[in-house]
């Protein structure tokens, strides 16, 4: 069986964060991870989407099963400490990556294809 792939693309509006969390939660549940881990995935996704909201580019969440992990990748354009960010009153990007890495060790920023993204892996089983 080919590895499973999931993709979600939404307009950059904060009110769509719930949809992104629901999407990620259904993937996590699909792989039958513990309920607490599903909650952690929702939190990680909610944090990871903020850079796209600040940049005004679509919320884009991809997931791909690869052996005994699921890779999540969330578009995260580089943003400076802009007035937009301050107005949103969110943590800065580095602090958010750190938060995600506390939930999913190894979480990092990856670049390539002209894309910058937050990547983390969800261990299965």
């Amino acid at each position, binding site marked *: 069986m080919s590895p499973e792939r999931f993709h979600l693309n939404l307009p950059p*509006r*904060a*009110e769509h*964060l*719930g949809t992104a*969390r629901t999407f990620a939660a259904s993937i996590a549940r699909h792989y039958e991870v513990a309920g*607490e881990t599903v*909650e*952690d995935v*929702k*939190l990680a996704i*909610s*944090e990871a989407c*903020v850079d796209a*909201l600040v940049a005004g580019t679509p919320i884009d969440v991809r997931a791909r099963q690869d052996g005994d992990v699921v890779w999540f990748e969330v578009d995260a354009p580089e943003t400076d400490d802009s007035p937009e960010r301050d107005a*949103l*009153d*969110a*943590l800065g990007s580095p*602090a*958010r990556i750190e*938060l995600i890495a*506390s*939930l999913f060790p190894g979480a990092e920023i990856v670049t390539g294809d002209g894309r910058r993204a937050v990547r983390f892996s969800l261990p299965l089983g």
Partner: protein
Amino acid sequence: MLDVVGEVDLSTAPTLRDRIEQLIADGTRRLVVSLEDVGFMDSSGLSALLAGYRRMQESDGALSLVCRDRAVLRVFTVTGLDRVFAIHPTVEEATPS
């Protein structure tokens, strides 16, 4: 007491922040924020609460929280802010008579 209901993320945290600001502006000095009816909260909710916490400290007041749900507590524990806020499991414990 401020009873927060629903999911707190970037779309709703500004409202939470404004509510707390307003209560402080109205003279509230001991504020209990109940997160009992919150199903989800991320760091933007944390920022809103932290802003309120600081404003209270500056005004010699106090802001405490009511929260038991592990998923909602999670964002406090991973950021270490569970050691900054007074977090109570029930409203009764947050409001000693």
